[in-house]
């Protein structure tokens, strides 16, 4: 564990020397905090939601979740819940760039060989790299989520809607599924990073793995997919298994010899 923590601190010290990197980590979570708040504020200022959009426009399954809310509250809840899903996804999207650079970056700066010469195991190396990439994104997202909650309360939503946002469904999505998604994303990115010879290729390939998440978001917005407790539970279990599987696979795929001798 000590070596993993040492590696994480080194990664952070190195990466966050660059303030632009800090900005890129914080930007997306902050954007997803500000955007829905602005929408809520503008909507509230321009009149009742239910005047503008009919309840029948909402996915039928969603109406079941509006139990105890009036039409306006239900509409507010629908809007904010769309962004709740984004808070679940952001921890996966943000660290992919860093993770995809992690191994190939060390190789191109020629720091990988001295690092591999130390008594660090492959599992420790990959775990350190994955956690170093995902923890800042997860923390930034959680902080943004709290800001969002405070903003939502102050700016627009009713106490009834706010109570719905603290539902175990969304708390699980953000505090359990989000980090698990982040780990899955960075595991894939680190795996790719250890197999390609150019950081740009690693970033491009890793970005492809974000696409299913965008599909999930679009599906939820259009009513094709309906995120409920059951789906979140299955996602959490599935991701837990997937994360272990990906890590085991990444460790197997990490060929020290190939990386040191065949990459130029």
């Amino acid at each position, binding site marked *: 564990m000590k070596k993993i923590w040492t590696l994480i601190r*080194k990664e952070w*010290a190195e990466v966050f020397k660059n303030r632009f990197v800090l900005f890129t980590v914080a930007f997306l979570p902050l954007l997803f905090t500000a955007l829905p708040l602005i929408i809520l504020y503008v909507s509230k200022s321009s009149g009742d939601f239910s005047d503008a959009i009919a309840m029948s426009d909402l996915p039928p399954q969603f109406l079941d979740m509006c139990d105890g809310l009036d039409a306006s509250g239900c509409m507010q809840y629908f809007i904010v819940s769309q962004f709740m899903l984004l808070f679940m996804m952001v921890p996966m999207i943000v660290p992919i760039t860093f993770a995809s650079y992690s191994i190939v970056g060390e190789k191109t700066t*020629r720091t990988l*060989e*001295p690092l*591999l010469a130390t*008594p660090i195991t492959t599992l420790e190396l990959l775990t350190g790299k994955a956690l170093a990439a995902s923890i800042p994104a997860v923390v930034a997202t959680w902080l943004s989520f709290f800001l969002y909650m405070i903003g939502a309360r102050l700016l627009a939503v009713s106490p009834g809607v706010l109570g719905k946002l603290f539902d175990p469904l969304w708390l699980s999505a953000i505090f359990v599924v989000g980090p698990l998604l982040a780990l899955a994303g960075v595991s894939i990115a680190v795996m790719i990073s250890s197999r390609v010879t150019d950081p740009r290729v690693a970033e491009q390939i890793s970005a492809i793995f974000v696409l299913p998440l965008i599909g999930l978001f679009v599906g939820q917005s259009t009513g094709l997919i309906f995120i409920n407790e059951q789906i979140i539970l299955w996602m959490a279990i599935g991701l837990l298994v997937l994360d272990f599987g990906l890590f085991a696979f990444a460790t197997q795929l990490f060929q020290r010899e190939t990386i*040191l*001798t065949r990459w130029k």
Partner: protein
Amino acid sequence: MDNSKMIVLEGLSKAFGQVQAVDKLSFSVQAGEIFGLLGPNGAGKTTTIRMLGALIGPSAGDAWINGYRVGHQDQDIRRSVGILTEAPGLYDQLSAERNLEFYAQMYAVGDMDTQIERYLKMLGLWERRHEAVGTFSKGMRQKLAIARTLLHEPNVLFLDEPTSGLDPQAARMMRGFIADLKSDGRAIIMCTHNLDEADRLCDRIAVIKGSLLALDTPTALRRKLFGRTVVFHLSESDGRFAEVISRFEFVQSADMVDNKLVVGMDEPEQHNPELIRVLVEAGAEIQFVGELRQRLEDVYLQLVNQEN
């Protein structure tokens, strides 16, 4: 196994697909010895060091480092050796001190702060310890890389081109430092293209080109390839003197080059007095006598060209 032999290779080989990079290398290195690994580019020097440092596995043969078997006890080997890689491989964004802290923690160095201070001071980097390595000159980076290699006090060192790209002053300082490391009782394998450096520093030298071409002390290698040559500086040039001494059986060659009589023979310590006497009797005025020392570069080129 002899305990003083800290590095032992027995038929160590490495193939990358169809390419045999290292072929059946066998030698050993003792404590307090600097062992030079010479060879042209692609001869397998770095591959050998990587195998010995447990960075890559051998295809065949065996090697033991500090008694640990390569390919079987790799973590123990990594803990107990220091590798100076061809490129310094430092984190440019981090300070010199932070770079060393990272590696000290990786090697679980007990008294980290003391060790870092010791080596930074020893290598003249203490005053600049807080500066980002990205601002360092090549020489400073190389010094910092060697400090990193030594932090955990390994008793086996692998140095790949330690003075590569350094200016003469920095290279000289580095050579002095390496010589001091030897006196600490460490076993050191050093890869270099700088033959003069190898000649000055190394106790023994292996010339490799995939396989082992020659292995001995620099002096013995010279003698094996070129024999021993004594030069008699005379006051005048006269071909007669070469004829006079050619009569001796122990004289392998005798040539007059300007006013120098160049004589090839074994054991000049034993034969020189007799040759001097004969030359003086023949009327030669001898100004001084010396042994011609072949450059290691000539030895190296001879070996490598023979192989070609």
